[in-house]
């Protein structure tokens, strides 16, 4: 091969910048394949977009507007925000506009609809946009002004990030361990700024063994280590996932064997136990055994991190034939309408209702303390979401613990943080 060795992240950035090669630290302007905003970030972006004095968005087929945060609207103010976005979407004939009834949680929805593909360059006014890296795309979160510039011009500037490689050896996962545990384990090791400004590249047999849903979970939480993007090279599982979803051609990139990394971490998946992140940072991780016995008031299963089929199946497998603890409000949020319907067909919704679980239409609601499951002062939740910051799910004196759906379901039954083996 002619030219220098590059990582998958560098190759995607180079291609979109029209360059043969790029190096970390280089500033580039790159073309965008998809530009995303939601009902919280789009109103600010729309206000800025108007100032560009352009007649239309750069390409109405490359914009996704997803009303998922405070919907179905929780109050008049949030209804006004949705209305603003809706009017913008109609005025500009945005092809991928998702309103109540069609809407799902953006980072579950876009891949499901085939709108994010391998090799794409995607920006979203939502920090968890990094989720799409699971498909072998470069995807990163931006603010509303950058988003507005992207809407107007179809381009954005980037500083090419250094890459950190995380190699997961082996396939002998401990029982119930999922992508969530792998990523929490990594964040526990490197800290919430351990990958600041950098790309997190996940690879190894352990990653190949993970389902697409598990890979989405891992890339989703790259931002919780401060990363610019998380990324996994596409493989047979990726292609199978894209079957019937992708409606345009895509390009598969992989890292060159001698590509340069700022750091390389190696783990054996067999050494990674079920994880729980304690308040108030995702880096405060312990094994589920060490968390055992912490009393909880609420369990939330869902979000852009863990609201996919594998997550719901895992939770239902634990909950089947059990009742949730009388002191625990348990909420399940399927990520999209398609996931909701599939869960219904598989009888999972029945299992949840039978167990005493509330099942909701897809929304980001409780994850960010928006609506649908706000905590009172002194209350404690175990959630499959991504952040346990102060006040994240409600009162500033409430607490959030993070874990995978199996731990969440077991804990809901026991009324305290519990290992799944305690109930199955």
């Amino acid at each position, binding site marked *: 091969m002619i030219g220098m060795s590059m990582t998958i992240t560098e190759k995607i950035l180079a291609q979109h910048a029209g360059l043969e090669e790029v190096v970390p630290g280089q500033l580039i302007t790159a073309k965008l394949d998809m530009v995303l905003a939601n009902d919280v970030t789009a109103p600010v972006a729309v206000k800025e977009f108007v100032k560009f004095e352009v007649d239309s968005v750069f390409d109405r087929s490359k914009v996704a507007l997803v009303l998922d945060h405070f919907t179905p609207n929780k109050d008049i103010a949030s209804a006004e925000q949705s209305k603003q976005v809706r009017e913008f979407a109609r005025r500009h004939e945005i092809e991928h506009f998702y309103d109540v009834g069609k809407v799902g949680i953006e980072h579950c929805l876009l891949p499901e609809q085939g709108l994010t593909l391998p090799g794409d360059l995607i920006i979203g006014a939502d920090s968890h946009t990094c989720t799409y890296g699971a498909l072998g795309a470069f995807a990163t979160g*931006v603010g509303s002004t950058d988003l507005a510039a992207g809407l107007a011009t179809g381009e954005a500037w980037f500083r090419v990030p250094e890459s950190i490689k995380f190699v997961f050896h082996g396939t002998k996962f401990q029982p119930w361990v999922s992508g969530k545990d792998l990523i929490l384990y990594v964040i526990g090791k490197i800290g919430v700024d351990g990958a*600041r400004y950098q790309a997190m590249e996940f690879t190894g047999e352990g990653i190949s063994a993970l389902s697409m849903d598990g890979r989405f979970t891992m890339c989703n939480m790259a931002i919780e280590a401060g990363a610019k993007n998380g990324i996994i090279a596409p493989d047979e599982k990726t292609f199978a996932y894209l079957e019937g979803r992708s409606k345009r051609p895509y390009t598969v990139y992989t890292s060159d064997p001698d590509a340069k990394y700022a750091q390389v971490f190696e783990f054996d998946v067999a050494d990674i136990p079920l994880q729980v992140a304690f308040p108030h940072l995702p880096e405060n991780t312990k094994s589920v055994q060490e968390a055992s016995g912490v009393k909880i008031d609420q369990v939330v299963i869902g979000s852009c991190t863990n609201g996919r089929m594998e997550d719901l199946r895992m939770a239902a497998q634990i909950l089947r034939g059990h009742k949730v603890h009388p002191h625990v409000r348990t909420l399940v949020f399927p990520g999209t309408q398609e996931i909701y319907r599939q869960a219904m067909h598989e009888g999972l919704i029945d299992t949840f209702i039978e167990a005493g679980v509330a099942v909701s239409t897809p929304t980001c609601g409780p994850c960010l303390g928006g609506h649908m499951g706000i905590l009172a002062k002194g209350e404690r939740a175990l959630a499959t979401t991504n952040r346990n910051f102060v006040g994240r799910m409600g009162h500033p004196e409430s607490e959030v613990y993070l874990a995978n759906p199996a731990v969440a379901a077991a804990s809901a039954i026991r009324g305290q943080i519990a290992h799944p083996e305690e109930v199955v």
Partner: protein
Amino acid sequence: MGKAWKFGHDIDTDVIIPARYLNNSDPEHLAKHCMEDGDVTFAEKVQEGDILVAGKNFGCGSSREHAPIAIKAAKVKVVIAESYARIFYRNALNIGLPILECPEAVAGINAGDEVTVDLESGKVENLTQKTSFQARPFPPFMQELINTGGLIPYVRGRKKNA
């Protein structure tokens, strides 16, 4: 001259502006709740020209541009931190909120100290403790971008002059 407000490491955007207030993006509304989950007295007591001082990874978490907007609308003159989360850093400059990276100044400023900051030179003076620090100043274009109020007014201004 302004009074320093000091916060710790990893101050996240939920602390800077809790999501429960994001149903309205009006800067005045956001300013009223700025830093609420870190210090409930902040929004009420902060004075025009005050300085926000924090540890590493300031602004981690969400991409909400509401966070720097809230700080700017609360009339904070400048943020000085050991380091910034990347989306916050970009957002702050895009909306014209001056932010400096200077671990020495963070270590040498206590809550309540009177501090002056010269954005052009990057000089930070602690008048209370009679010490001074040198932060790396912004290059002239970034200085102009901040002065004109952020990325979009800056780009528009340049287009008009072109």
